[in-house]
Structure formats: C-alpha cells, structure tokens
C-alpha cells in the first residue's frame, strides 16, 4: 500500500523521528521515497530573494545555493541514505503549499512529517506569511494520509499490533477508518474503532446529564456497528469503544490504554482559514501529545479500492 512516499523535512532535529520512519518504510515496503525540503519563502511582490526557512536570513536561491542546501541534506541524512534510493528535492515557496504541490504531482501514497511547530520554523515565523501551521494546512488539503511522527517510533510498521481509529461519523473519518483498516489488514494488527461523545459540543458549558450521555454513547455505538463496521467487511480483529469527554483528550487516553502503534483520524474542517478552525486545532493537540505516530486522513483517494 506504500509505493511512493513523501517525507517533508525542515532538516532540523524535529524531523529526525519522522526520518527514521520514512526511511524504514521505504525499505520494508520497497517504496520510492522522495525527500522534500522547502528552503525559502518568497516575497509577495517582485524580488529574487527568499527568506531561508531555518535561519530567517534573506538568500538568493541561485543554483549554487540550492546545491549547497542539497549537500547539507545529504550530510544530515547520511546514515539513512547509505541504504536508500531516496530522491532529494528542494523547493522555494511556502512549505505547506510546496508539500501539497509535490504530493499532488507525484500522487504519493503518504506524506510523512515531523511535528513542525511554529517556533521551529524561524524563517516562516519571521516572514509572518505562514498563517496557520504547515501541519494543519497540509493535513487539511492533502489527498493522501499525512503521518506525523513526533516521538521516536521504534516499532517497525510491519509489526504493528494496535491501530486506533478515531471516528466522528464525518465523511472524512470514514476514509480514516478505511485506511486504518487497510493497514491493519496488511500487517495483521488489531483495529480499535473509537468515538468520544463530545461533552463540550454545541457550546454547552454545563456537561450533559448522565442519562442523556448514556443515550448518546449507546447511539454512537449503534452507528459504529450498523454503519461503519460493514464497511470494513467484518474484519475480525476489530474492537469498538465509545467514551465521553473532550475528543482529542479521550483518543489520547484510549490510545495509551491500547498501547496503540498508530492513531488514525480525520482532521477535516471547512473553515477557510485553518487558523480559526476549531476541529483543525486537534491535529496539533493530538500530534504533540501522542507517543505514537498520528495519521491524518481526510480524503477517500487512497482507499478508493475499498469503497
């Protein structure tokens, strides 16, 4: 299921854990790996200089400079590259835009990233052009799953035993479920389908009454069993669990309880400005706190075969 992978890196330590996973997947799945580094952010008006993403300094991306950056990348990932055929690509632009552009052009099966936080993208922050975080914007628009690796992921993906899929019954989370299932089936892992009844939903400040909650939990369970499980064709290693609370907190707790190797969820939002989207913010909340990688799946393109 992984023929072509895109590893988007800032070439800083934040991406080291993601790098390990990316190179490992390349090898285990015999995939083609593309390593993308977006090095500079251009101006809106006319200008040949770009702001270096890492230093915040202005640079002219001449062929020499591009070559120098490529050499630096090779040094950074030297240990991995020894056994890899990864193609190194550098680009000029806003990081999220260029990641999406290349992912679309190459029709990759998965994007891997570190938890690029805003503080770390010095140039981006200084340039004040990158409104939302790279992560959030890539997760929203990418047609393929986006896997964010924040902590060391020591388990080989082929040996995954527990995959947690969070669903909120949206169309997007259906794709997340199917993709989680696809991977679970391929590696023989347990698939834990999880939903959290959102006690904050609807702007309620007062938690709903206990009976009401019970009803909602029952209803959610029914929906999973009647509407979702048929879609994964009775995969026998499936469990269903519904909790209540703040969804992103609950999914983290649940993942911990199940010793999840991977969390799969949708981060759909249709706010134009991802910065202001409520749902979108859970990408980072989950990613930064999760001890395992998090896959954000928002589109059906890579599970079309299961539809």
């Amino acid at each position: 299921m992984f023929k072509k992978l895109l590893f988007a890196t800032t070439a800083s330590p934040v991406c080291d854990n993601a790098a390990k996973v990316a190179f490992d997947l390349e090898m285990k799945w015999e995939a083609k790996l593309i390593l993308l580094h977006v090095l500079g952010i251009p101006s809106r008006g006319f200008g040949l200089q770009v702001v270096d993403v890492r230093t915040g300094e202005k640079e002219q991306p001449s062929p020499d400079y591009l070559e120098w950056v490529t050499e630096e990348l090779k040094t950074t990932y030297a240990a991995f590259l020894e056994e890899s055929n990864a193609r190194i690509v550098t680009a000029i632009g806003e990081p999220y835009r260029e990641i999406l552009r290349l992912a679309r052009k190459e029709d990759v099966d998965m994007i891997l990233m570190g938890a690029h936080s805003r503080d770390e993208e010095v140039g981006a922050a200084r340039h004040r052009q990158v409104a939302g975080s790279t992560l959030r914007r890539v997760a929203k628009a990418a047609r393929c799953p986006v896997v964010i690796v924040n902590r060391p992921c020591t388990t080989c993906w082929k040996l995954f035993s527990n995959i947690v899929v969070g669903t909120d019954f949206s169309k997007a989370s259906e794709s997340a479920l199917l993709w989680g299932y696809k991977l679970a089936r391929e590696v023989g892992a347990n698939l834990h389908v999880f939903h959290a009844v959102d006690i904050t939903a609807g702007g309620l400040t007062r938690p709903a009454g206990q009976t009401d909650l019970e009803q909602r939990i029952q209803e959610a369970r029914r929906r999973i069993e009647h509407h979702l499980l048929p879609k994964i064709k009775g995969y026998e290693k499936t469990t269903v669990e519904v909790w209540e609370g703040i969804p992103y907190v609950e999914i983290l707790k649940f993942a911990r309880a199940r010793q999840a190797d991977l969390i799969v969820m949708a981060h759909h939002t249709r706010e134009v400005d991802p910065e202001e989207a409520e749902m979108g913010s859970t990408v980072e909340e989950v990613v930064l706190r999760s001890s395992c990688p998090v896959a954000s799946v928002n589109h059906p393109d890579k599970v079309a075969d299961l539809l």
Partner: protein
Amino acid sequence: MPEGKLCNRQPVTTLEQLQALLADKGGKQYYEEMNRLEVDAKALWDTIQRTCKSRIRTWLEICTHCGLCAESCFYYLANHKDPSQVPAYKIQSTLGEIIRRKGRVDNAFLQYTMDTVFAKCTCCNRCAIYCPLGIDTGVMASYTRGLLFSQGFTPWEMKIGSGMHRIFRAQMDVTTEDWVETCQWMAEETSEDWPGLEIPIDKEGADILYTVNAREPKHYPEDIAQAAILFHVAGENWTVPSEGWEETSLAMFAGDWEGCRQQVQSVYDAMARLRPKRMVVTECGHAYRATVIEGPYWAGLPTGKTPVETLHYVEWVAEALRTGKLKIDPRKKIKEPVTYQDSCNYIRNGGLADAARYIMSRIAEDFREMGPSREHNFCCGGGGGLNGIGRYREQRNIGLKVKRDQILATGAKLVVAPCHNCWDAIRDLEEIYRIGIRWTFLKPLLINMIEVPEHLRPREE
C-alpha cells in the same frame, strides 16, 4: 570591453541568457561588467531625438527650480531634506544633463543616472501634483529608465524581470501548462469547501475575464482560490485565459518598452480571443498601471483604452458590495482601527480612491485615513521595482520611514494593502522597524466577512 556577457545592450530573449543571469548571484559579475560597459553615445542621442517628445523637453526647459516639489517627495523627507533628493534636481542632473550634452555622456554618468532614477525615484508621480507647472518627474524618471535600458544600464533584477516577460509572458517562469494546472488544482482543493465552485478556463463570452500577478500561480495559488470563492459567491460568470493571464510588468520598471508591449499584447489577444464583457485584474498596483493605463499606448491602440473595459479588483469589490452580489455580515465587520494603503498606481494614477473608501465603509467600523491619503498618499516605498533590487536595499529601507510614520499616526494596527508590492513593502517595514502592525489583502478579509447564500454552503455531513 564594449559589452559584457551578462551586462549588455541586448534584452534577454532566451532561456540560456536568463539562466546565466540567474546563476550570477546577486549580479556580481553583471555589475562588474557594467563598470566596463561602453556607452553608445550616438545611439543614445538618436533614441532621444526619436522618442523624447515635446512634453518632456518642455518640462525640462520650463522648470523654474522653485523647489516646491521638494517636500512632496517621500525620499526627500526620509533623507533629512537632502537637496539632492529634490525631484527637479534628480531629473535635471540626469536626463536634463544627458540631453544638454546631446547624449555624450560616459559610463560613470549613466551609472549615476541609473542609481538616481531607480534608488531615488519610485515613479510614484506624487511630485507632479505639487509642481505649479505640473511637471511630472516620475514620468521623466521612467522615460530615463528606458534610455538606460537601451544602453544596458539597468539593475540586474530588472534585466532578469524583463527577460522573464519576453520569454514567458509573465514576470516569473510560469508556463501555460503550469498556470492551467494550478487553476485546476485550486478548483479541486477549493470546491471541497465550496460545492460547485469552478475556475473556468478559456470560456468565451464570459462577463468577467480575470487576470493575475504571476507570483500567485507561482507561489501563492490560494490567492486565485480566494478570487474564485468570491466570484462564486457573487454568482459571477467569469473565466481565466489559458494565455495572456499575467498583468504585471517588470518590463515597465526596467524601461523595456518592447517587453512591455509584448506583455500587454498577450492580454489584449486573450480579450480578442475570448470576447469577455469586462476584465478584472487582481489586487496589484503596478499591474493595473501597466495593463490598463499605459498598456494601450504600448500596444498602439488608437482609443488609448484597453480593448474591453477593465476594472481593478477594488472596483469589482465595490461594485459587488453596492449591487448586493456580495453581502457583508454586519457582525463580522472589522472592529479595530484599520487603515488603507492607497497605491500610487491605481489610486493616484488610476483615480480609484472612492472605490477603496466605499469598500472600507462597508467592511470596517473604525476606518482611519492616513495623512495624507487618497491621491496624495505617499508611495509605500517599494514602488518602481525597488522592493526587489538588492543594490538599492539600503535606500529603499530608509524610504520606508515615511510610510512607517504615516501608519503610526493613524493608530491602526491593521493595514489593508491591496497591492502585491505595497503588501511586501509594509511587511519589510514591519521587519525592519517593528511597529507591531499586521497587513492584508482584501480577499481573505472579505471571505471571512461575507454572508454565504444557503445554496452555496457546504452540505452538512
């Protein structure tokens, strides 16, 4: 050495030449070659005799050196009233002198001229409204840039920029395929949230032909997506041309008049091909000037007008608000103090101050005018190509002080800047002077403020 490999009198017309220039980091070799570039005095004088119309000659002759234009120039103000920054002095000591000497000037003189008409003048035309005789130094500086270009004395970035236009019919290396592909991509991405949204390409007879700044498809395609959202919500019948979509003109900054002509011709050809009722251009100042104000003359159109009526983006927005095609949710109006950067090009030279005022009255509760504003506003400091020329970075940064003080005086922390260059100059200004402001184009503001009709809202899942 009469002419250099990179720095010479020939415009860039091939990809190889362009790449060679781009590989010369910062224009190091280019400027070294410029030091040895021979002046073709005869050709220079011929050109002047052929092209220097009586208007400019008269201006040069009738100037009384009264100095009334001095205070009108933001460079004069930003440089502690340095007398060498008086508009009349800047042009008399350069173009005036070249003409007096009948073109017999040397290399050093043309470099001085280049440094003057690029780093001391953004061709903002403000001084013209303060000269009692109506003498327009900006127009003359621009004319002088043309003379310099014909002699090979143009800043490195300008040589590249004009070459881009000649090769790609765009200020950046965006091919027709890249452009079409980008529009399709944005339609795909955006129609997820806006069901039914399209970016129609090459639709004949549309009400609106929309054209952009090449930096949008190249680096900021969401700008195109945002335009599409607003046209979509306004219910416009619109299209983009697959060719002739670029309205900016670095060739104009460079003074490469043939490059200018080729560029606007491609847009006018698109008009002829697709026969739209009107054209709307994106939020860009110099692009409007190039394609709408100057373009018809470059292309030799006898009417002096674009083949079809053309609106700057602010005119379209004002119209859409007035006719109710776009409705603002009153609760979402901007509450904080906000000011507006009047662009020299479409406000002073294009006369669109009222359209901008109307928009602000509809979207902001506390709109603060800069002082001075409208036609009298100062240049942002990045006009005339200055934002992008490394050689003149320092001078540009000093010039930004005037805009900084204007913005500070309004008390607003938000600046609406519907021009790519102004946007950039204000961004740079914040980076250098740290006055704690934010700035924005109109499109993202509007998208967060408009009422979306029921049938266009995304279906609930």
